[in-house]
């Protein structure tokens, strides 16, 4: 970096104080903008909360942030009583967790093999994975249903888990790839010099180093899986096997829709993901610190 060396010059007292003054004004403006944006991003949650406490009329006629005359907490009890929310919730949870863990693990394997190991077909295989992102979901429904029928997986939650993994793998690999490619070569060289096996190196050194990006990819995967409903609707029939997003559709009617209850369902379904998100996203920062790069 040539420009860096020229930048070194002795600083006078005044220059420093002028710089702090202008930078503190700059920081002030920056904070105002940042805070305003934060408020803007928080509004949807507030809106959703209010939405879930209104009836249909109020939802359509009141301003979105106006308080309803009476708070319709009954929307929540309606949701609780009518939809089998508890079961949906449990299904959503385990399907999401299993799919995310497997996707992240498999994607790390593949990305490692493609970016760090040397083999002839790696380019082609990478291409195969990338093309996997390009097919529109609705083209896959009919073929996939026949496929699952042939292997007797219709109405099985396994079909959902497998689909989630397969459809999220390309995206996850793409996200991981950018990071893997930036990893210094010295890491492997050093560990191989030490007589480390590839497996050991992958699990002990590489995987921890990519923790921050793996967590990032996991969050994205989690959100996608948690909110997905087309596959669930198409491949599952048994109500007891379905997930939370189907609970939302329980309130969409032939001629009328119970929007308040949908709001309540959305609210219930967003809470766990909010909590997990807040917990996991700390790991993004910690990720690199936990890695084995020292100095």
């Amino acid at each position, binding site marked *: *970096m040539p*420009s*860096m060396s020229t*930048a*070194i010059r002795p600083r006078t007292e005044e220059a420093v104080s002028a710089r702090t003054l202008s930078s503190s004004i700059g*920081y002030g403006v920056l904070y105002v903008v940042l805070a305003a944006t*934060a408020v803007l991003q928080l509004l*949807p*949650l507030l*809106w*959703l909360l209010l939405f879930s406490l209104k009836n249909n009329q109020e939802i359509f*006629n009141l*301003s*979105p942030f106006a308080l309803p005359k009476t708070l319709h907490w009954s929307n929540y009890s309606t949701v609780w009583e009518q939809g089998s929310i508890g079961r949906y919730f449990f299904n959503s949870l385990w399907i999401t967790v299993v799919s995310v863990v497997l996707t992240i693990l498999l994607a790390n*394997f*593949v990305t490692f093999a493609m970016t760090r*190991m040397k083999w002839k077909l790696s380019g082609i*295989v990478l291409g*195969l994975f*990338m*093309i*996997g*992102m*390009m*097919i*529109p979901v*609705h*083209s896959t429904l009919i073929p*996939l249903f026949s*496929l699952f029928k042939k292997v007797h997986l219709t109405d099985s939650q396994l079909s959902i888990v497998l689909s989630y*993994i*397969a*459809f999220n*793998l390309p995206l996850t690999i*793409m*996200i991981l790839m*950018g*990071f893997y490619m*930036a990893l*210094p070569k010295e890491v*492997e060289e050093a560990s*191989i010099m030490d007589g480390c096996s*590839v*497996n050991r190196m992958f699990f002990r050194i590489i995987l921890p180093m990519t923790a*921050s990006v793996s967590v*990032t990819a996991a*969050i994205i995967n989690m*959100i996608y899986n*948690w*909110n997905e409903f087309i596959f669930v609707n198409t491949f599952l029939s048994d109500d007891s096997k379905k997930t939370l*997003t189907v609970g939302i559709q329980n309130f969409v009617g032939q001629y009328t829709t119970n929007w308040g209850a949908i709001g309540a369902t959305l609210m219930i379904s*967003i809470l766990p993901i909010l909590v997990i*998100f*807040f917990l996991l*996203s700390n790991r*993004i*920062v910690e*990720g*690199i610190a936990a890695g084995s790069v020292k*100095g």
Partner: protein
Amino acid sequence: MNTVMSNKRIIALYVLPSLFLILAIIYVPIVLTGYYGLMNWNGIGKPSYIGLANYKTLMHDSVFWHSTFHSLLFALLSTLCLILYLAVALVLSGKIRGANLLRKIYLIPMLLSSVAIAQLWLKVYHPTNGILNGLLEKLGFHHTPEWLADPHIVLYAIFIPILWQFAGFYILIYYAALKNIPASLVEAAKIDGANALQVALRIKLPLISEVIKVTIVLAVVGSLKYFDLIYVMTDGGPNQASEVMASYMYHKAFREFDFGYGSAIGFFLLIICLVATWVIRRLTATKDTIQYS
């Protein structure tokens, strides 16, 4: 070194399970989509082979070209928005008090499902009692736009929520990438007297260039096959003014029972994505990958 890192058994062990899954669950549909694209098939009963007739119709289908144009426009706009997301991520990853809380708050919209986002923005755009027109009327505008009913505006009106919806996704990726840069490199540059902007442009951006390339591909491919919000907010209307490739495919295959034609659109969409990816790869190709030194 080389022998260890090209151990065939390990490569197979690492790649084959995923590859098999992809081939079964994604490539079977891709191949079948290509196959159905050559058929006259309503999705029920026996398909009949008609060669490239669907594709010939496609070439003269003005609605299809409109929707392709709309999709490409979305792809372009989404790519431009990446700059905005990157700037936010740069600010957040810097040493800012409360950054930790702020960045979490910024990502909240991402957690909402498309159903919720669509409902929220329908309320924003409502012609008579929406937030936006309410605001405009307070500012003294009398002829407020009919955001989702006006064919000239609808496409852009729908793009704003999409931009907003995906902000969290890209900011999250950039943020993680920026946090992955060893602090020592940034510190060294600062000791050398570089200011924040210089550090960002000269140190940080080159180091995450691979991630940026990846996000460009993701943004373009994601936009080209985008469906969710459009389906809920306008269903491609009015008068197909906001129709995109994926929604047009859906309408043909599932509403009009023309599964053969729908599949042809789906296959064409795949090819456009491939071409776009190839172009991006060529445009962003660098001689050697930048690594931490």
